[in-house]
């Protein structure tokens, strides 16, 4: 019997995450004023109220949340592998905001001319080019990466605010959606966008995963073992940018899912490795839970989900900054 070295613990954690994700999905559809009963959920085809809730209201929103969360988690895992630091995440270094600015320009200034995902991708690429060249050391030094990221984040936010103000002067909800990210009133079209991006990118990530595992050993060892670390890095950054841009195109620059999901996955398994699958599952679970909170919170206005992830993720970022500073990696 050949003992294939797949850690049982990783499989168990993955199964647990899937169960939780399904539970969170059921909760999203059943809780609250317009919630469906379990009987509604199991009767097929849906009719009346449950048809409306499933097809128009919460169904697409849930599918978008899971897809966006998975894309952000995967993108974070790729970036943290490349930078070899938890702080080297797309949301910390301005990638999401750059994509958000691109999406805002495409959707609001050139509606119908430039597709939103294309705008998001262009914004993401521009933001990463700015970060890459302004650090002077590429993506290598986490401290510089964060400082450059703050600058790019500020530029991106300024562009979003300008564009939204110029076009939608009176709509605060539009502004928060573009600055913080939102899942309110998502459509099946957006669900299709993010899942097509995921399905297109995931096979490449799978092809890359063994090399990413080797990259964790550092450039010299990885090169000595024939894992071509430089090419791996470029490929990982490209895939991460596409994933983030796809997520931002359909939900805005939702913060801190990409930062936290890979770290949670790492702590759950206590194993080495890029944790690609687990980061994607964790990201999906986090965002579905955050959106569940956004929908069911006992406050009169329904705040966009990005505000919730921003508040919780900000605390986590503070904790990470202190920890990394103490370790001397900043």
């Amino acid at each position, binding site marked *: 019997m050949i003992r294939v070295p797949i850690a049982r613990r990783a499989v168990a954690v993955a199964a647990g995450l899937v169960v939780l994700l399904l539970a969170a999905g059921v909760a999203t559809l059943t809780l609250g004023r317009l919630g469906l009963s379990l009987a509604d959920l199991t009767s097929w085809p849906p009719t009346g109220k449950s048809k409306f809730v499933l097809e128009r209201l919460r169904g697409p929103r849930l599918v978008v949340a899971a897809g966006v969360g998975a894309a952000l988690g995967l993108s974070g895992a790729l970036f943290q592998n490349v930078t070899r630091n938890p702080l080297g995440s797309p949301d910390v270094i301005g990638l999401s905001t750059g994509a958000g600015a691109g999406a805002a320009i495409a959707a609001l200034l050139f509606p119908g001319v430039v597709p939103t995902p294309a705008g998001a991708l262009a914004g993401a690429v521009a933001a990463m080019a700015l970060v890459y060249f302004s650090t002077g050391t590429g993506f290598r030094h986490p401290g510089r990466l964060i400082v450059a990221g703050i600058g790019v984040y500020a530029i991106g936010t300024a562009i979003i605010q300008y564009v939204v103000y110029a076009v939608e002067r009176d709509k605060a909800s539009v502004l928060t959606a573009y600055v913080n990210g939102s899942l309110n009133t998502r459509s099946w079209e957006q669900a299709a966008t993010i899942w097509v991006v995921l399905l297109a990118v995931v096979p490449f990530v799978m*092809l890359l995963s063994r090399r990413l595992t080797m990259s964790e050993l*550092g450039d010299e060892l990885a090169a000595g073992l024939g*894992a071509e670390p430089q090419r791996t890095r470029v490929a990982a950054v490209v895939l991460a940018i596409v994933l983030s841009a796809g997520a931002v195109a359909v939900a805005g620059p939702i913060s801190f899912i990409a930062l936290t999901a890979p770290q949670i996955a790492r702590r759950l398994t206590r194993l080495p490795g890029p944790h690609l699958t687990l980061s994607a599952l964790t990201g999906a679970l986090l965002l579905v839970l955050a959106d569940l909170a956004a929908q069911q919170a006992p406050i009169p206005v329904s705040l966009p989900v990005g505000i919730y992830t921003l508040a919780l993720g900000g605390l986590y970022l503070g904790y990470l900054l202190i920890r990394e500073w103490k370790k001397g990696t900043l």
Partner: protein
Amino acid sequence: MKIATRNLTISYGGAPVVGDLTLDIPEGEFTMIIGPNGCGKSTLVKALGRVLKPDSGTVELDGRDLWSYRGREAARKVALLPQNPVAPEGITVSGLVRRGRYPHHTLLRQWSRDDEGAIAAALERTGLSELADAQAGQLSGGQRQRAWIAMVLAQQTGLLLLDEPTTFLDISHQYELLELCRDLHDEGRTIVAVLHDLNQAARFATHLIVMNGGTVVAQGPPSRIVTTELVRDVFGLACDVLPDPRTATPMVVPHAGRVATAP
């Protein structure tokens, strides 16, 4: 397994660190490279291990340009253990050693009996079988360095390149590691190691390469080339060279320090 350099030049964007070097690494020997800091010895080993790309000239492996091989193909022939490697968080000893099997895997052939055999043999060879499931981060310095050696052994190459393998080890573990390297050489491997300690190099190497200023200034069996003049010219150190009372290999005794006087 023949590895050699032909007019190899490497510069990190400035003055060349290794300049126009043509060198044959003798097959089947335990070669040690010594020389003062910045003489290019680490750079040379990295070039031989396909980590640094030459600015001009070539590294030839079995008569072919090393960079014309695919990464994994080269890594099945040459293994490199760099200076001060860092283990990923949470990895076990056997997990670390398993990474040495990467060059033997392809898209379709990911894991096999060969891998298990190679890992078990590498752990056995380095005396780590009992610690296979231990966390790499919790090993002592000597054990950790043996775990890294086990990883490159699992790579099953004919040539091992070790960049300062004894740095950060206390003296007993330095000798333990050098004896392990000597045994690995006795089993038929070609080994190239960068070392700082002249006396250790003279004791264990079967072939010595002395570098200075990015080029090779002397090479041959230690007993022939380690002389007072060489140490003075290369390291700028006044010394006597005596036969080592235990192994009869050359032993460098520096002149520096006060002569002890009877109390």
